[in-house]
């Protein structure tokens, strides 16, 4: 294959990575932005989404599209519910103290991971894609499902942006993010907003996982990479900045796709981590973040 088509293939793979990463990182970014909670268990919500997707598609059977669509709806809802319970039982009781919540979410990470190992097992299991249509390009065929992942993710990102900027729910979330004390003085139940945002963050991670699981299989340790990459994206993009998160996800996803294909995946990780270090040194608030007030 010539260089041009090869680059196109790498770029497409990078776009798929970016799309899923943007959704996952957006969840992490919202939780940190609004609640100031560093959710180390974020990757486990991702893993849960994938594992539940496998369980749901297996239980339903029939045409793969049927099971997949059910998983795409039910799995994020269950994960969101679990996150809400965890938030009420743990984070709220810690009064959202920044240090305590880091330790608590590390604990949540291990609990969720070990529960998955106990009940789901150590195997990596595939989920059938809802359709297997291949788009034939002049140089190679490409999975139509992967392209649909990119489209679905883009749609969800636009929807999230609309909710944040155009609705009252978004207004309430942004007010809580900027100044939770003043938000309370204007009747905003900050406590309930926190519960909702934490659940929403987990839902976004779970959706991303359901989308990726027909490509990469469900496994109880699969949450680690998305967690690391989400942190990288959120740091580069700027905490709490939707635009920054998307730009950084594209940057990291594309460079990961292209560098992995032409050089090695390890080099891609090295470069991403180096980028984080550079951003932290020269622009600690991130590319699109605003400096602390």
């Amino acid at each position: 294959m010539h260089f041009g088509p090869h680059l196109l293939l790498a770029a497409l793979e990078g776009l798929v990575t970016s799309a899923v990463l943007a959704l996952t990182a957006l969840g992490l970014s919202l939780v940190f932005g609004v609640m100031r909670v560093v959710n180390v268990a974020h990757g486990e919500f991702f893993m849960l989404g994938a594992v539940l997707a496998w369980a749901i598609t297996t239980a339903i059977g029939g045409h793969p599209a049927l099971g997949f669509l059910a998983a795409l709806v039910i799995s994020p809802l269950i994960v969101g519910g679990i996150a809400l319970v965890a938030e009420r039982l743990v984070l709220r009781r810690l009064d959202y103290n920044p240090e305590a919540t880091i330790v608590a979410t590390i604990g949540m990470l291990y609990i969720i991971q070990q529960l998955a190992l106990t009940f789901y097992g150590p195997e990596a299991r595939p989920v059938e894609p809802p359709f297997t249509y291949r788009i034939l390009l002049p140089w190679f065929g490409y999975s139509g499902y992967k392209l649909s992942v990119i489209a679905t993710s883009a749609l969800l990102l636009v929807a999230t942006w609309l909710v944040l900027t155009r609705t009252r729910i978004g207004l309430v979330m942004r007010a809580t993010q900027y100044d939770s004390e003043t938000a309370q003085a204007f009747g905003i139940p900050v406590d309930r907003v926190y519960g909702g945002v934490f659940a929403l963050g987990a839902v976004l991670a779970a959706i991303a996982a359901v989308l990726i699981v027909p490509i990469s299989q469900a496994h109880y340790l699969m949450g680690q990479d998305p967690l690391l990459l989400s942190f990288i994206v959120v740091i580069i993009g700027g905490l709490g900045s939707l635009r920054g998160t998307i730009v950084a996800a594209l940057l990291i996803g594309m460079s990961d796709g292209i560098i992995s294909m032409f050089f090695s995946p390890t080099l891609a990780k090295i470069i991403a981590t180096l980028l984080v270090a550079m951003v932290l040194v020269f622009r600690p608030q991130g590319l699109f973040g605003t400096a602390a007030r």
Partner: protein
Amino acid sequence: MTGMNAGVPEAEALVISGLDCFYGEVQILHGLDLVLHEGEVLCLFGRNGAGKTTTLKAIMGLVPARVGSIRLGGKELTGLPAHEVPKAGVAYVPQGRRLFAEMTVAENIEIGLMARRKGKAVRENVLDLFPLLRQRLRQRSGTLSGGEQQMLAMARALCLEPQVLLLDEPTEGLMPSMIAKIRETVVTLRDMGVSTILVEQRVDAVLSIADRVSFIENGRNRETVDVEELRADPSAVRRYVGVG
């Protein structure tokens, strides 16, 4: 205690009695008592750290009351979660304005309206009070001038159509023409029947717009006097603040 109580009894908008408040282990308010009459401007006067801002935060439920009561009309506020207090009819203009700086003027006003589900009519009334804001609706509030920000902070609070308005140093850091405008607004609001607690450091401001003045010292209300008394004999000001 006050000269006013001897006369005709006035309706009480807000009554604080025996209030103790803490920041962590440090006690800020020691059995503070305060009465706000309906339709008056009551000024809290005192040194930095005396507990004026804490009193306002305690009313808003942002600092919990450990002992004592805060009653709005017949309603006890101390047991309410902080976000229920504004819904009961208390609006707060915090020190330093605390706008949602990255949001537009319109969005800040919208948040004010949402607190008590007020609609277009209230929005129009508030904008009529601060016509300048009407031209800036789509501007990011953090980019407004200091005086405009103060107007927006007051507009946002007035969107609640509150019975009681809490103003924490509204003229701090403003230029004289703006200070005059803010004071005018406070007087207009009193004429409209809003009961206001005003925290203020400037003696001239107190004398020109307050009806009564409470001297706060070490977390206690030492004395509440009519402003006429104070105009006749400003020695109390010197006693509590050391400036004249």
